[in-house]
């Protein structure tokens, strides 16, 4: 029986196990939308195609399954670019399907024609231009295989209108992808496992740096086992949060620009760094010339191109992390390191005193307090989706995640506007999870039309706006490095509670610390979408901070013990 290309598209999605897609219809994708009605797939109508890609991304990050976004040609496709780049930087497996003008019109500057495969070439793992119905199934199968294999990432499939309308037989087996196993053999320069084992055995001050790869390869248990067996403390990257329980005694916390001071100090003093599924981003290394100079380095990453990229290492292993660690573990000798662990403990020094949590309630509302309350009241079990900026760092510092995939945040690209749509994706993926959006007043205004999507899809998502009336992180940089010249960072917004009300979402405004707990509890009880506008201290900053390009151990610390505020 012949099927149209449009039918084959949905047939392929069903066979790939897809149950939900995020999209927005338009002319060139109409045949696909027309065929959709006959397939058991939930379509979530977004308000902007960027939202569709972030939703697919959030869906993928919450579950590990491939997220799917769909849009029309031209502006529909170009609106996806930011979301695709976000997924690329954070290794998130999504498949984006775009309609394209008829194959005869390609190159003619037809209405809503754009070269989306050309545009997305550097920000996808791979992309396809499909011009015939017979090519739809092979392209879709390969797209899913590429997106989810190796280091995951986004794939775009651009399907011309005539390819959707044309008909052919579907031979699913013949459409099986034939991909080269590119990394099936060692290349010159690859490290040896025995060298890694020897370095670990010889180390006195080792430290594990665990990244997103720990979760992507499902190696959370193995990383922990390595740490416990050899008593090696762990520092995590922003995207590594949740991979190792925050409550585990060997988990020191987050490293990098806004990591804990003692974590960065430990990195600088270590004699061995074991980097597992992370990529030495400039936000975690600071000045490369002074980064961990005393440490030997082992780096395991599935992407060989990450090895020796930013930091030269002694043993570089290009392999799936879980497979690598399973091979190592039987060869790791159990040992104790009381001196090193005690030393790291001592590095904490007066950090607890400086911690804003321990300051008495001075009447001001601090974002850190809000996050801490949120963590306490949700018992650390919520899926928290953050935007980008100060609130993102405070979330990373004060919400203690104990389970993988419970912090969803745009790390590499730092995409403002990510949180609300990504949370929609996460909620669709995990309908039983308690999902909280933590977002600044700036980023929220970038994608807030998706509130309508929340309502139309009847989703129980709670939104916590950390509203300080500034583009806070940029303001902080202006305060520290531009002599408080606040160029273009003061930002107004609507009355967020009234705005939410207009969408049909319950909302409250909180201005005092004492009101926070009640507002959070009320939102949790509601069982439908709720928004809380936390009007926090305007000129608070994220501490500690390693200025961009500075030495990792030279951090700006919170003024102690008194927090100066604008009102003081």
């Amino acid at each position, binding site marked *: 029986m012949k099927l149209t290309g449009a039918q084959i598209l949905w047939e392929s999605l069903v066979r790939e196990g897809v149950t939900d897609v995020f999209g927005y219809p338009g002319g060139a994708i109409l045949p696909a939308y027309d065929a959709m009605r006959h397939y058991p797939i939930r379509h979530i109508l977004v308000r902007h195609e960027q939202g569709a890609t972030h939703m697919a991304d959030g869906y993928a990050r919450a579950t590990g399954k491939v997220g799917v976004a769909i849009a029309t040609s031209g502006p529909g496709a170009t609106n996806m670019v930011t979301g695709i780049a976000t997924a690329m930087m954070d290794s998130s497996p999504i498949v984006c399907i775009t309609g394209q003008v008829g194959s005869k019109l390609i190159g003619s500057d037809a209405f809503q024609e754009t070269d989306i495969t050309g545009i997305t070439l550097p920000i996808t793992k791979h992309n396809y231009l499909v011009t015939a119905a017979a090519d739809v199934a092979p*392209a879709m199968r390969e797209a899913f295989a590429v997106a989810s294999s190796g280091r995951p990432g986004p794939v775009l499939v651009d399907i011309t209108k005539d390819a959707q309308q044309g008909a052919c037989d579907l031979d699913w087996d013949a459409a099986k992808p034939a991909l*080269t196993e590119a990394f099936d053999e060692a*290349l010159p320069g690859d490290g040896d496992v025995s060298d890694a084992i020897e370095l670990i055995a010889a180390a006195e001050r080792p430290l594990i740096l665990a990244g997103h790869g720990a979760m992507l390869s499902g190696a959370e248990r193995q990383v922990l086992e390595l740490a416990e067996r050899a008593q090696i403390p762990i520092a995590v990257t922003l995207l590594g949060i949740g991979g190792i329980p925050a409550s585990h005694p060997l988990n020191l916390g987050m490293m990098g620009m806004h990591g804990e001071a003692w974590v960065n100090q430990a990195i600088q003093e270590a004699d061995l760094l074991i980097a597992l599924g992370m990529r030495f981003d400039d936000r975690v290394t600071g000045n490369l010339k002074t980064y961990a100079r005393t440490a030997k380095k082992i780096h395991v990453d599935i992407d060989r191109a990450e090895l*020796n990229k930013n930091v030269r290492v002694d043993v570089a292993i290009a392999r799936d992390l879980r497979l690598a660690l399973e091979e190592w573990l039987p060869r790791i000798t159990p040992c104790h390191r009381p001196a090193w662990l005690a030393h790291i403990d001592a590095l904490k020094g007066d950090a607890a005193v400086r911690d804003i949590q321990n300051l008495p309630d001075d009447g001001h509302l601090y974002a850190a307090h809000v996050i801490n309350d949120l963590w306490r009241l949700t018992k650390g079990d919520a899926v928290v989706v953050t935007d980008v900026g100060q609130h993102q760092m405070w979330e990373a510092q004060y919400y203690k995640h104990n389970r993988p995939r419970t912090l969803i945040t745009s790390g590499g690209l730092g995409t403002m506007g990510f949180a609300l749509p990504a949370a929609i994706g996460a909620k669709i993926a995990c309908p039983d999870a308690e999902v909280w959006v933590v977002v600044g007043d700036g980023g929220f205004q970038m994608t807030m039309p998706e509130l309508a999507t929340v309502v139309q899809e009847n989703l129980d998502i709670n939104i916590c706006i950390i509203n300080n009336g500034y583009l806070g992180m940029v303001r902080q940089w202006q305060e520290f490095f531009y002599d408080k010249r606040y160029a273009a960072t003061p930002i107004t917004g609507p009355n967020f509670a009234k705005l939410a009300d207009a969408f049909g979402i319950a909302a409250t405004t909180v201005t005092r610390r004492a009101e926070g707990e009640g507002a959070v509890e009320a939102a949790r009880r509601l069982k439908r979408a709720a928004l809380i506008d936390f009007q926090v201290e305007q000129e608070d900053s994220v501490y500690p901070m390693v200025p961009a390009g500075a030495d990792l151990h030279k951090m700006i610390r919170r003024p102690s013990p008194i927090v100066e505020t604008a009102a003081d």
Partner: protein
Amino acid sequence: MLHTFAVYVDNKPGVLNRVSSLFRRRAFNIESLTVGHTETPGISRMTVVVDTDEYGARRLEAHLYKLVPCRRVDNITSTPSISRDLALIKVAATGEARTHVMQLVDVYRARIVDVSPESLVIETTGTEDKIDSLVEVLRPYGVIELVRTGRVAMARGTLPPPHARPRPAATTASEVSGDVSSCSV
């Protein structure tokens, strides 16, 4: 230093763009790039010369492997290999100069492939050094036009072609008749 890569890719539309875009994206400057068919139908071979260090070369190799249509990458910089460049050189040559130019062509074992009253076209094959040198000695006579292919290279010995490893026929999207080998670099 200069690194020479032999890159085996599927002969599909847009593949050359993917490869060259990768070099641009990762800020590597291509010294030369040539593309042509191989003995295996459907597979093209690129010879890419890049100025980078050892680590850069390794990362580039890894990045090339990440391209879906890329089957195999060999860094043949340090393996014994033969590399050749081909040039066509149009030289102004009248009267006495014509004899001199023809003598130089003999010395360099090049060939004259076109003769006109005002000029000669010389074809030469060899290492880049040899061609550079020929161009230099011809320059005083007036080089009107010059075109070079860029380096093609092959490892010496009898190792089997590395892309000949078993792999099922590719079944990717569009089997349009485009051909990277006909693209200009």
